[in-house]
């Protein structure tokens, strides 16, 4: 999947959003938005509390590693609003995202995810994408299903944070 990571564009644009590699200059906006349990509790790995050092680690280590390709999301006002990523730790490339709470409910997640799915598809290197969301995370499931992801199973989660909680696995198969 290294090839897929390298084939993805550096930046993506949608009607309202710019998706670009996360930079240290994002941190003054990113850290306060990430340091919110309403955000982190839906994620598998984001630490809470989320300190500046976690932001530096994300930009310098996680974002540059082979395991994922995250994009910093900025909206039409130039404000940092969240992160959308393709992750390569499982068999299928997996999409994931988080949005700062002030930016919920405006369709930004669908827009970012749409761009990510289109970019992955355009590489021709991924026949399918996967996604996961807690069964309680109705908003995220709606966003994923709107992009064409279909539920394939609901199983107890095996991550430390969500151990045992029902989690919906979804897949999106690209048409040939």
């Amino acid at each position, binding site marked *: 999947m290294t090839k897929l990571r390298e084939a993805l564009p550096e930046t993506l644009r949608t009607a309202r959003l710019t998706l670009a590699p996360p930079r240290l200059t994002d941190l003054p906006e990113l850290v306060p938005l990430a340091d919110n349990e309403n955000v982190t509790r839906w994620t598998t790995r984001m630490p809470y509390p989320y*300190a500046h050092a976690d932001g530096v680690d994300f930009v310098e*280590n996680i974002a*540059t590693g082979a395991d994922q390709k995250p994009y910093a999301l900025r909206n039409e006002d130039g404000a940092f609003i969240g992160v959308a990523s393709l992750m390569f730790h499982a068999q299928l490339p997996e999409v994931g995202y988080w949005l700062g709470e002030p930016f919920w409910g405006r369709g930004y997640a669908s827009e970012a995810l749409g761009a990510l799915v289109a970019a992955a598809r355009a590489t021709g290197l991924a026949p399918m994408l996967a996604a996961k969301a807690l069964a309680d995370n109705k908003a995220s499931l709606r966003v994923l299903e709107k992009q064409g992801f279909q539920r394939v199973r609901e199983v107890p989660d095996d991550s430390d944070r969500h151990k045992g909680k029902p989690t919906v696995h979804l897949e999106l198969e690209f048409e040939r």
Partner: protein
Amino acid sequence: MSVTLTTPHLTLREPTMDDAGNIAKYLNDFAVSGNLARVPFPYGRADAEAWLKTRRPGLTPAQTSFAIDIPAQGCVGVVGFHQGVNGTVLGYWLARPFWGQGLMTEAAGTAVDWFFERTDANRILSGLFHFNAASLAVQEKLGFAVIGRSRLVCLARGAELEHIDTELTRSVWKARKT
């Protein structure tokens, strides 16, 4: 990867959670954090613990940080590498009570040797804010040369400042070793 490097006056070792107290005490000093780009001020134990949690196993040499440990004091600073936009960057700090004894040069020189020996990188980047003459002196002693100026955010000061960019090439490093 757990590496320990020993020099005449200090040991460079993996930072551990036990260092949180010392790191919080010494970095909560504007004379130190005000020279650094990525350290907030005030700096508390939670900041130190959050940073230590990011020092997980499996980091590459270009992501490695060492605690600077001196006998009977424990961790009195950090020297390490991080991935910048243009390549691997050397960064470091030393607690104020230990300034002026050549410890930073000894620690940074040891880390630089380790990095060039462990990798095939052809250069290490570093730099300092324009007012930091002591740090420039450390880098010049190690063979770093000024390659330009840039603007860089200093988190502790909450401002973008003039930054002097430096580099040490492998060829200069090698020439000075022989």
